[in-house]
C-alpha cells in the first residue's frame, strides 16, 4: 500500500493513502463534495467542474524546512479552485469545502449545468433518483448569491436565453433510450464502454454546445449496455424495459443475488404492486463491483407473465387448479405402489443451497440414487480449487478456455480490470473511491497476461496475447499439447507454444474453464492436471448458477442413478421443464414450475407453483465458492413456494421424515452441520468424492454454444435482441446443401426448433452452432435436420 499522508478537510484531519484524490479524502473525512462526472471504477477526468474546492499545501524553503507562519507551516493556497476528482492529496494538504468562495463556484456550476437542461423532471424516469436533482437542491441557488434582496424572489439563473432543443427520444437499442436534451456531458457512459467492457460503441459526436452522444453501431453491440443507465447522473439514458412504470420512490426494492450465471452479481430488484418492473446493479465489491450483464438486468419481463399461481392436478385428462392439500392427495395417490428407490428428484440449476439440502435429505431418506440438478456438467467443478476475483486480479497469467462474455459475464468485466493491471479498489470510510487516480482513460491492455481459446469467437479474445477459435471438442487435444503429451493441433502450434512459455514463467496462474471443457471429462481431467502442475487456481463457468454449491452438498446421482439428461425413475419430481423423452419415460410426474408450458399440460400429473430466483430466500455459492444471500422481492406469485416446501410435500406423501421442512431450518442445518460460513465468506468443503460419472457428453456435430440469455427470458425486448440462428462456416453450409437464409427444422434436446441458417466466415468447418440458451451449454449433439429449404 502507498505511504499514508495527513490531510485536513475543513476542521478534520485524516490519514489517507498517498495518491488518493482530494475528492475521496473529503468523503473519507465525512464531508460532502458535489460531483457529476466522477464515478466508482471509472477514470476521473475532471469534465464537469462540479467538484471545485479550495486546496493549499505547506511548502519547504531552500533550507529544506517548512516555511513557517506563527510557528505553524504556512499554507500556500492555490490561486484558483481545483477539481477535487483529479487532484491528488499531498502530505499536510489543507482542503476547504465550506467557504463562500467554494459555495459560490459550486452554485455557479449548477447554474451552468442546468442552463441547457430541460427540467422535465415530472415526466422523467430518473426523477427522485437523479444526481442532478440532488446536487441542484443541495448546492445550487445559494440565496446569498442569487437573491438580490430579501423581499424579492431569488433569481434562478443569471442567463436569459432559449435553451438548446435536440432529440428527446433516441432509441439506442431495444433496451436503452437516450434523451439528448437531458445529457450533461459527464462522459461517464463513453468512458464506461471503453474502460469496463471494452466495447467502444458510444462516443461524443460534434463539439462545444452541439456535443451529443451517439453510436454508429446498430443497437449497441455489447453484452453490458445496461450499466450506463445506472451511472448516467441524469435521465438521459433510460431502461426501456422499465420506461414509465413507476416513480423511483414507489418501487419496493430488494437487494439480492443474480442467478443468471455462476458469478453471483448483486442486483436490486424493483417491484411495484406485486410486479417485477426493473432490475438494477447493486454494489458487491468482492464480485461484480457495481456492474451487471444485460441478461441479469433486462431479462426479467418473463417473470410477470403466464405464471403458475396455484397447484394444478390432472382431472379427466386436464390440469385444473387445486389447493396444496389436493395436490398432496394427488401425489399420494400417484405414488401409491411406487418403490421409494424409484423416485427421482431433480432440481433446477439455480436452486439455493437450502433447496439442495432438502433434496439431499429427502433422497437419502428414500434411499434413491436418482437425484441431480439441471445443467450439471459431466465433470465436477468441485474437483478444482477455485480462484477468487481478488486472486484473479493478482495473477500473473490467465488462461481462458471458453467465452466469458456469455458464460460468466461478470468475469469478463473483472478480466478487463486484470488486463489493465488494476488492483482491487481501496476501501475508505465511504467505501470504494469515486475518483481513483490509478484508473486512466485508454489504459494499455497488458496482453501478455492473457491467453484465450474458444469454440466460438468471443470479444474477450481481443485482450489476449494469444488466442484462437478451435472446433468444439478440440479442448482435450489442446490441453494435451499444453501438458506436453501430444503435438499441438493443426494451426495452434504457435499460440500454444507461447502459452506454454508463459505458464512456465508465471508464478500465480488462474485457469478459466467454460462449459465446453467441463462437459468433456477427458478435457476436464487434463485441465485439472494442468492446474495441479502449474499451481493454478480455477474458475469454472458452469451453466448452472449454483453448480458449485449443489455439487458440494452432494447433489449428483448415486450409484446407478439417472442424471439430469437421462430418463430413468418411475416417479419424478422436476423443478424445471425436462425433455419430452424424460417426461414420456416416467409413470408419474410432478412438475414444480413457475410458468405454464404445453409440455406440462401434456404430461404433468401434478404441477406445483414455483418461485423464480427473485422470489427465493436462501444462499447460493458462486464460482469462487463465495456464499451469497438471496432475498425475496415483493413479487406476486400466488401460492408459489420453493423446492423446500415442495419436497416437504413429497416427503409427506411418501410418509418419510426429513429434517428439512422450512427454509430457515435448512439454513440452520447448513450452518451447524455443514459449517456454511457467513455471507460473502468462501465455503470450500473438501471434495465430495465424485469423479466423472458420464462418458464424454460431447460428441456430435451440433455445438450448443453458451449464451448469457436463457430460453425463458426471450420475451419482450429480449426477443428483439436475441436471435437464434443455426450458424456454420460457408464451406460447411455448402457441404450440407444449405445457404444463408434457409429455414431448417432442427431437433434439439429441448424440442424441435425452426431456425434460419446463417453462414459466418471464420468458424471451424464441419460443425454447426446453435445458441444453447440455458442448461445444455457446451454440449454437442448429433445435428438432426428434419426439413430444410429456401425461405
Amino acid at each position, binding site marked *: 500500500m502507498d505511504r499514508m499522508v495527513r490531510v485536513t478537510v475543513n476542521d478534520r484531519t485524516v490519514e489517507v493513502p498517498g495518491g488518493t484524490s482530494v475528492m475521496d479524502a473529503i468523503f473519507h473525512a465525512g464531508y460532502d463534495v458535489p460531483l457529476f462526472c466522477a464515478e466508482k471504477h471509472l477514470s476521473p477526468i475532471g469534465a464537469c467542474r462540479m467538484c471545485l474546492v479550495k486546496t493549499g499545501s505547506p511548502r519547504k524553503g531552500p533550507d529544506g524546512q517548512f516555511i513557517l507562519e506563527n510557528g505553524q507551516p504556512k499554507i500556500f493556497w492555490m490561486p484558483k479552485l481545483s477539481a477535487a476528482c483529479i487532484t491528488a492529496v499531498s502530505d499536510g494538504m489543507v482542503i476547504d469545502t465550506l467557504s463562500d468562495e467554494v459555495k459560490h463556484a459550486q452554485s455557479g456550476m449548477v447554474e451552468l449545468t442546468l442552463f441547457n437542461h430541460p427540467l422535465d423532471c415530472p415526466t422523467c424516469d430518473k426523477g427522485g433518483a437523479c444526481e442532478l436533482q440532488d446536487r441542484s437542491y443541495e448546492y445550487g441557488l445559494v440565496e446569498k448569491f442569487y437573491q438580490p434582496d430579501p423581499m424579492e424572489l431569488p433569481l434562478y439563473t443569471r442567463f436569459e436565453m432559449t435553451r438548446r432543443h435536440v432529440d428527446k427520444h433516441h432509441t439506442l437499442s431495444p433496451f436503452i433510450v437516450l434523451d439528448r436534451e437531458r445529457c450533461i456531458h459527464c462522459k461517464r457512459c463513453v468512458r464506461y464502454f471503453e474502460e469496463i467492457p471494452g466495447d467502444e*460503441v458510444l*462516443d461524443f459526436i460534434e463539439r462545444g454546445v452541439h456535443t451529443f452522444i451517439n453510436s454508429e453501431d446498430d443497437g449497441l453491440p455489447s453484452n453490458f449496455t445496461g450499466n450506463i443507465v445506472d451511472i448516467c447522473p441524469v435521465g438521459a439514458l433510460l431502461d426501456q424495459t422499465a420506461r414509465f412504470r413507476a416513480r423511483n420512490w414507489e418501487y419496493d426494492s430488494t437487494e439480492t443475488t443474480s442467478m443468471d450465471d455462476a458469478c453471483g452479481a448483486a442486483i436490486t430488484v424493483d417491484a411495484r404492486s406485486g410486479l417485477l418492473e426493473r432490475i438494477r446493479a447493486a454494489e458487491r465489491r468482492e464480485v461484480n463491483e457495481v456492474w451487471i450483464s444485460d441478461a441479469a438486468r433486462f431479462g426479467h419481463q418473463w417473470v410477470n407473465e403466464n405464471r403458475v399461481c396455484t397447484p394444478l392436478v390432472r382431472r379427466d385428462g386436464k390440469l385444473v387448479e387445486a389447493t396444496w392439500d389436493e395436490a398432496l392427495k394427488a401425489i399420494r395417490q400417484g405414488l401409491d405402489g411406487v418403490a421409494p428407490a424409484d423416485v427421482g428428484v431433480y432440481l433446477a440449476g439455480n436452486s439455493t443451497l437450502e433447496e439442495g439440502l432438502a433434496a439431499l435429505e429427502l433422497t437419502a431418506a428414500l434411499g434413491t440414487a436418482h437425484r441431480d440438478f439441471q445443467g450439471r456438467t459431466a465433470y465436477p467443478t468441485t474437483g478444482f480449487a477455485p480462484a477468487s476475483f481478488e486472486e484473479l486480479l493478482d495473477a500473473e497469467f490467465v488462461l481462458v478456455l471458453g467465452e466469458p462474455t456469455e458464460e460468466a459475464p461478470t468475469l469478463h468485466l473483472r478480466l478487463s480490470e486484470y488486463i489493465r493491471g488494476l488492483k482491487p479498489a481501496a476501501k475508505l470510510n465511504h467505501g470504494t473511491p469515486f475518483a481513483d487516480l490509478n484508473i486512466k482513460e485508454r489504459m494499455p491492455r497488458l496482453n501478455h497476461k492473457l491467453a484465450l481459446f474458444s469454440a466460438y469467437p468471443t470479444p474477450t479474445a481481443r485482450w489476449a496475447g494469444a488466442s484462437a477459435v478451435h472446433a468444439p471438442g478440440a479442448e482435450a487435444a489442446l490441453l494435451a499439447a499444453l501438458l506436453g503429451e501430444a503435438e499441438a493441433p493443426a494451426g495452434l502450434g504457435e499460440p500454444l507454444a507461447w502459452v506454454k512459455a508463459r505458464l512456465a514463467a508465471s508464478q500465480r496462474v488462474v485457469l478459466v474453464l467454460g462449459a465446453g471443457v467441463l462437459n468433456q471429462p477427458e478435457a476436464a481431467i487434463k485441465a485439472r492436471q494442468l492446474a495441479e502442475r502449474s499451481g493454478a487456481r480455477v474458475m469454472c463457468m458452469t451453466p448452472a448458477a449454483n453448480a458449485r454449491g449443489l455439487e458440494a452438498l452432494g447433489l449428483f446421482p448415486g450409484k446407478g442413478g439417472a442424471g439430469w439428461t437421462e430418463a430413468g425413475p418411475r416417479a419424478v419430481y422436476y423443478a424445471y421443464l425436462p425433455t419430452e423423452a424424460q417426461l414420456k419415460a416416467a409413470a408419474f410426474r410432478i412438475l414444480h414450475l413457475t410458468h405454464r408450458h404445453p409440455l406440462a399440460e401434456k404430461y404433468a400429473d401434478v404441477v406445483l407453483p414455483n418461485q423464480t430466483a427473485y422470489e427465493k430466500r436462501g444462499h447460493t455459492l458462486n464460482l469462487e465458492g463465495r456464499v451469497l444471500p438471496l432475498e425475496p422481492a415483493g413479487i406476486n406469485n400466488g401460492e408459489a413456494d420453493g423446492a423446500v416446501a415442495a419436497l416437504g410435500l413429497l416427503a409427506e406423501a411418501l410418509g418419510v421424515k426429513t429434517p428439512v421442512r422450512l427454509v430457515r431450518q435448512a439454513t440452520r442445518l447448513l450452518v451447524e452441520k455443514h459449517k456454511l460460513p457467513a455471507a460473502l465468506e468462501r465455503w470450500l468443503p473438501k471434495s465430495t468424492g465424485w469423479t466423472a460419472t458420464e462418458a464424454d457428453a460431447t460428441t456430435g456435430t451440433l455445438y450448443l454454444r453458451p449464451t448469457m440469455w436463457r430460453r425463458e427470458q426471450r420475451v419482450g425486448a429480449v426477443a428483439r435482441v436475441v436471435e437464434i440462428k443455426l450458424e456454420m462456416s460457408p464451406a460447411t453450409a455448402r457441404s450440407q446443401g444449405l445457404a444463408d437464409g434457409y429455414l431448417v427444422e432442427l431437433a434439439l434436446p429441448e424440442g424441435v426448433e425452426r431456425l434460419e441458417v446463417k453462414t459466418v466466415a471464420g468458424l471451424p468447418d464441419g460443425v454447426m452452432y446453435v445458441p444453447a440458451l440455458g442448461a445444455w451449454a457446451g454440449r454437442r449433439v448429433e445435428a438432426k435436420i428434419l426439413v430444410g429449404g429456401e425461405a
Partner: protein
Amino acid sequence: MGFFDDKQDWLRGVFAQYPDTPQGRRAALMPMLRRVQQDEGWISPERQEEIAQILGTTATEVAGVMSFYSYYQALPTGKYHLQVCATLSCAIGGADELWDELVQELGILRGDVTPDGLFSIQKVECLGSCHTAPVVQVNDEPYVECVTKARLHALLQGLREGKRLEEIVLPGKVGHEVHVRGEEVGV
C-alpha cells in the same frame, strides 16, 4: 475497393511515425482522415468504416474524432465550403445574421450543395480568431475576417467569378478596402 488498398506504402509510412502499440496505431487516425478528406472532399460512412477496420477500432470512435474537427466533412461539399464561426465572439459580432444572409443568398442549408456545385455552408466552433470576429473560412484557406454583409457578398461574387481568394478585394470603410488576407489595398 477500399480507399487505402493501393496506399499501403503510404499507410506503412504513417504507422512508422507512431509507437508499435494499439494506442500508437490509433494515432494514425488523424493522418488517415486527412488523407481521405483531401482526396475525396469528404469522408463517407464507408470510408469511416474502412478506417475503423484498419485501426482496430469502431466506426463510432472514428465519427467521434471526425466530428470534433470542422475540417473533416461527413457530407459532400461544394467547391467552396464556407464555414461560419458561430461561437461567442463571432455570435456577438453577428454570425447569426451572416448565416441567415448566406442561406438566403445561396438558397441552401447545412448539408446541401448549390446546384452549380460551387457552395456549401456550415457553422463551426471557435476558429481561434476572436479578435477579428466574425470569421468565415473557405475550405482550408486563411480566414476571411471582420466579415460584414457587404464583405460577404463581395466574397461570394469573387468566388463565383473564379477568382483565387487572395485576388478578391473586400469593401471596408471608404479608403480602407482590404484583401482577404487583411492587408489594406495599396499598402
